[in-house]
């Protein structure tokens, strides 16, 4: 299996720059997510790794060997597309064996390989069925089977679950991850679904407008976002941003919000100007004792928890609290923030200020 390294990769289409200057490294055996909204350059990045697009500049290393300008056929990579393209006139077995047959592999060996792959994917029962009558999930398994059977250096997947319905997507996501855990193959996976990225990824790269905003482990990216874009894109509901304007010194552990002192992790840099006090919904508590007040404007029931939306003088705040806790629309309540989890942002640039919370992550990120 393989290690993939991208250095200063750039791709222009005419006047449009799809990828600005990306660098990251995918370790051998990692499940690696490229995450971002439509048009952020994630698919272009994946296609350059595959050799389906050639970079304008920069390098791509597969197992240490530079292959940025090599055609796809020389890279030994398997690509799984969003729309599973199966040969409709062939049965499952022939669809899966096709890549091996076209490589000229011996028949007995092909049979053996196909049987092994069918066992891994649990599709032994449908090997002789035509692909036309299969369910969406089985079709996707067959498409995966065709990728796995070649024993490629790595798998590249472009929203392979995007076309499936919500319930089924959840199940296939679990299945794909379990498959990865069994095979240990290096996988680069493109998605716009932050939950999918968090759920399946060992590492995540968050992209926006062709630029890498942050790169790291899912929980670190969630807890210690480097920019307001990342904080907003990851998490549902996303991080709350309370607007304030002040001057803070390095070492400060609190800041004035609507006239009330609220906690922050000790700052490692001074800042003056417009800021956003970024706090995740699960770190907001409703408390009668708290001085910072808000009026409840909406509640959304989610089973174990509920999301309460409050209007405050510094902007709307969403709190995730237990669904047994009373929250009535129209009521005015106090809001208590878990200061140790807060990120302060420069409101103008969106950059996170360095603090006790995030310095370790942002320093090497």
């Amino acid at each position, binding site marked *: 299996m393989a290690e993939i390294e991208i250095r200063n990769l750039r791709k222009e289409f005419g006047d449009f720059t799809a990828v600005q200057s990306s660098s990251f490294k995918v370790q051998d055996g990692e499940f690696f997510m490229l995450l971002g*909204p*439509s048009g952020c350059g994630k698919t272009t990045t994946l296609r350059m790794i595959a050799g389906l697009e050639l970079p304008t500049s920069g390098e791509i290393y597969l197992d240490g060997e530079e292959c940025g300008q090599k055609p796809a056929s020389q890279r030994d990579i398997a690509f799984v597309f969003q729309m599973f393209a199966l040969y409709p006139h062939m049965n499952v077995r022939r669809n899966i064996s096709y890549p091996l047959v076209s490589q000229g592999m011996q028949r007995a060996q092909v049979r053996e390989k196909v049987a092994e792959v069918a066992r891994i994917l649990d599709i032994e029962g449908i090997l002789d069925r035509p692909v036309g009558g299969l369910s969406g999930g089985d079709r996707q398994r067959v498409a995966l089977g065709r990728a796995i059977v070649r024993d490629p250096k790595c798998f590249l997947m472009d929203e392979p679950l995007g076309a499936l*319905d*919500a*319930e089924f997507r*959840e199940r296939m996501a679990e299945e794909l*991850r379990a498959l990865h*855990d069994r095979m240990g193959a290096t996988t680069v996976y493109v998605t*716009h*679904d*932050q*939950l999918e990225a*968090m*759920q399946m990824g060992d590492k995540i790269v968050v992209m926006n407008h062709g630029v890498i905003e942050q790169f790291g*482990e*899912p*929980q670190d990216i*969630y*807890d210690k976002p480097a920019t307001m874009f990342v904080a907003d*894109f*990851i*998490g*549902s*509901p*996303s991080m709350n941003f309370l607007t304030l304007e002040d001057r803070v010194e390095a070492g400060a552990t609190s800041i004035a919000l609507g006239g009330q002192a609220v906690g922050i992790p000790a700052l490692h840099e001074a800042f003056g100007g417009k800021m956003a006090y970024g706090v*995740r*919904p*699960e770190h907001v508590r409703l408390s009668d004792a708290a001085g910072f007040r808000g009026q409840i404007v*909406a509640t*959304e*029931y*989610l*089973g*174990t928890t509920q*999301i309460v*939306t409050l209007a405050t003088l510094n902007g709307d705040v969403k709190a*995730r609290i237990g*669904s047994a806790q009373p929250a009535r629309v129209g009521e005015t309540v106090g809001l208590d923030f878990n200061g140790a989890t807060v990120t302060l942002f420069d409101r103008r640039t969106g950059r996170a200020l360095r603090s006790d919370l995030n310095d370790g992550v942002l320093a090497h990120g």
Partner: protein
Amino acid sequence: MAEVTLRGTTKQFGSTVAVDDLSMTTPDGAFVVLLGPTGAGKTTTLRLIAGLEQPDAGEIEIGGRSVLGLTPAQRDVAMVFQQYSLYPHMTVRENLAFPLRSPVLETPEQEIKRKVGEVAETLKISHKLDNKATALSGGEMQRVSIGRALVRDPSIYLMDEPLSSLDAKLRSDLRIELKRVQASLGATLLYVTHDQIEAMTMATQVGVLEQGRLVQFGTPREIYEDPVSLTVAGRLGLPRINALPADLFGSAPPRACTIGLRPEHIEQGEGLLSEVVRVEHLGDQTRLHLSLAGHDIITLTSVHTDLTPGATVAIRPRNALYFDASGARVA
């Protein structure tokens, strides 16, 4: 706006029964969500109410009057489809005004202008009114097609997975927007989806459909906390409810065959020892994949847990749900 009632409604396509003896009332001003997997009969139900399909048996009433003999136009319903269908050669303003210009309605020009402005404001597309429909992003196009329903004042809005073609972030924004619009207009809305988050967060009532039948109807909380069957219990709740042999943890109520455990039904620290298979960090929650006597169990743990694969966790049930061999709830 009006109340919509189905009584014993049945629709067959050849030998397939798409909607099977369905009785259900959408109260005036309610936001009813029909939830079910692909093929459960959700879309057919909407199309029957809209008059795009004719039932084989049963009654359909809008505002207390039977509409069976009426054409779709006479029924005065507004439908939003999954795939936005805008007129590409028209501007956003012309697209929004189009339903009001229908010769049947004879809306005065002044009124059209006011309505279009108002709806554009609610859906936050005012600044795009003079753009061509084709010059919009996917999310904006879907807003326009929802707006085209909202400019009218029909007896009911029927929406067929209007958010499913949008990306995750936009979907969650529009979810809140749609709920707010419905509440502020006091509109009656029947909404079809297979997305449980949409059902839980937007609905005043949820109707769960399975194979053309309405298996449960109630508030999201009733359906989550008090499901009538194992399949209904599996429709709501993330991670999904765990279904295990009823006697796995000891004695079970009579006839119980399966014990259903949501994360809040699993107490950690006491009971049977299970092995941690995988720890999944989702940000606001961390999921534990456990293995107990060959059974997979998914539950939640504290976000920054120290547990790693291979560790053991003692678990026992608390206020669990029990189901019989057919999947019906027994306790």
